[in-house]
């Protein structure tokens, strides 16, 4: 924690401080280096990568990136991921918020039992249902379509999302709802116009959490979608690397293309991301 403003600023940092910086910086640079290596390796030819893996490229070949984009149909992958993730997260958060409010604030028969039922989902890894889910989607004729991912993506994170939102709803003051009721608002209006806007901090958390998890989800994406045209990024990247594995420069380029934009977005919103995750909704 920062020292109070009353203490005088020292001119020369103490040994402890210097050490502190050094250790921290070393660790952080070590963490970042593999990403940096990935980035500049995409500019090299395969021969260069084989001959001197650590060296910086002699010539910065931007064409590799265009090639990877085109060959890997990366634009299509981005679009599919955006669509699937966007729809899933939006639906998920809306549905979860409705339910979370009800579990937190409304009284109805079976409320607690239903909530505990939902909590089962908290502990289960999604892998346990890949087999029956595959055949369920097949029976619904939804395999190899966006729905094959959107529906599971909206359903599985419900438990955690409802749990987090409910915790937050529980901390809100009761008076607001009573006031709204007195003003004549019905149940849904009270929820939509009074309570829902108040959970914004927790919403940020659940949106970010689910966004990152679903954007990067691999297992369902790999199993439930077979067509090249509908694949999402993780599955597409895996397939691309499997096909072009010998063409290292292309794989590095593709890796960079699929990770750099997300990193840029992350750094742009970094403060909000970290703030969102530390609002205490996790305790």
């Amino acid at each position: 924690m920062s020292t109070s403003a009353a203490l005088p600023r020292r001119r020369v940092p103490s040994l402890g401080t210097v050490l502190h910086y050094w250790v921290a910086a070393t660790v952080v640079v070590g963490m970042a280096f593999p990403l940096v290596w990935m980035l500049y390796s995409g500019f090299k030819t395969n021969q260069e990568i084989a001959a001197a893996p650590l060296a910086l490229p002699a010539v910065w070949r931007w064409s590799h990136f265009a090639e990877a984009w085109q060959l890997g149909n990366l634009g299509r992958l981005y679009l599919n991921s955006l669509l699937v993730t966007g729809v899933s997260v939006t639906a998920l958060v809306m549905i979860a918020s409705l339910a979370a409010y009800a579990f937190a604030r409304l009284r109805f028969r079976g409320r607690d039992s239903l909530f505990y039922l939902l909590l089962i989902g908290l502990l289960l890894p999604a892998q346990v249902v890949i087999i029956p889910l595959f055949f369920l989607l097949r029976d619904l004729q939804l395999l190899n379509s966006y729905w094959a991912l959107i529906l599971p993506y909206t359903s599985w994170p419900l438990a955690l999302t409802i749990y987090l939102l409910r915790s937050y709803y529980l901390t809100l003051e009761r008076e607001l709802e009573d006031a709204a009721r007195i003003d004549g608002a019905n149940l849904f209006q009270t929820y939509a116009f009074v309570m829902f806007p108040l959970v914004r901090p927790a919403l940020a958390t659940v949106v970010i959490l689910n966004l990152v998890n679903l954007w990067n989800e691999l297992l369902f994406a790999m199993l439930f979608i077979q067509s090249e045209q509908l694949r999402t990024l993780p599955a597409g990247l895996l397939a691309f690397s499997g096909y072009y594995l010998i063409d290292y420069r292309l794989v590095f380029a593709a890796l960079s293309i699929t990770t750099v934009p997300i990193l840029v977005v992350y750094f742009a919103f970094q403060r909000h991301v970290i703030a969102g995750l530390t609002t205490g909704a996790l305790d």
Partner: protein
Amino acid sequence: MAFPSRARARSEVGFGSDRRPAGASRAARLEDAQKYLFVLPALVLFATFVLLPLASAVYYSFTVWDGLRTPEWVGWWNYVRAWNDSVHVRSYLNVGVYIAGTLVVEVAFGLLMAVLLASNRRGFGFMRGLFFSPMVLSMVAAGLLWTYVYDYRRGLLNEGLRAVGLGGWAHPWLSDGATAMLAVIVVSGWKYAGFYMIIFLAALRRIPQSLYEAAMLDGATPLQRFAHVTLPLLRETTIVAVLLCVTGGFAAFDLFFTMTNGGPFNATEIPTTWIVKQAFDRHNMGYGAALTVVMTVVVGVVSLAYLLATRRRHAVEY
């Protein structure tokens, strides 16, 4: 993440029906019905895509089925097979090692970095951001990148060792059963330590500075301050972090699939990779389903046991 206590649930003053007198009006009954509408979408989705498949998995676990022919009922045969399947048993040991390893490289390391980077000195915000950044990558990207990092002939790690004269230490990390799991654990730590750093950071920020000052006045060293002030007050957070790490460990798949696919020779085989292999490579749907049921039970038991063990009367508020 303790379960909501029963006392708290009961003490909640309800909104609506329990304040109304007996003989509620028709409008009130309508409103009661509306309450179910709030939870209906969630429950329908949950029932269809979580509970129903779970139940189906149980059904399929009693059959032998290749996904094409009709399932053949075999009773407990798959479970007997699971018991005798040395790879299956070993996969739980492997995932246990993985979880233990990630508790160190993710949770403990994350805590360490949270403490290290907690202050607002210049550049620390940026460093925190950088430390967290691998989190946004997909496991596929991380796995592919690190497969190249670990490459025997041309990888970053071995080349780095050769460059500083430690060429003798160059090793086929992912091909040796002894080092493969460690290699995967390192990647996991690289990716997830930032997440735990954030969690602990939030908790650290809520510890009042006055407690540290009091300890300093008492002559406590930084290490003592950490052990006697910081750690105890992080108890709740640590419990949550450990639970997330454990359940996350069981759910690990992407990294293992991308880097080793359970190899070499099942040295990094975890329950999920073995299940996917059985079900989708070998088309043993029934056996795969039985394995998933076993995993569900194991995860459930472990998590519940953990929660019961760490549950106690609510922590001291400060």
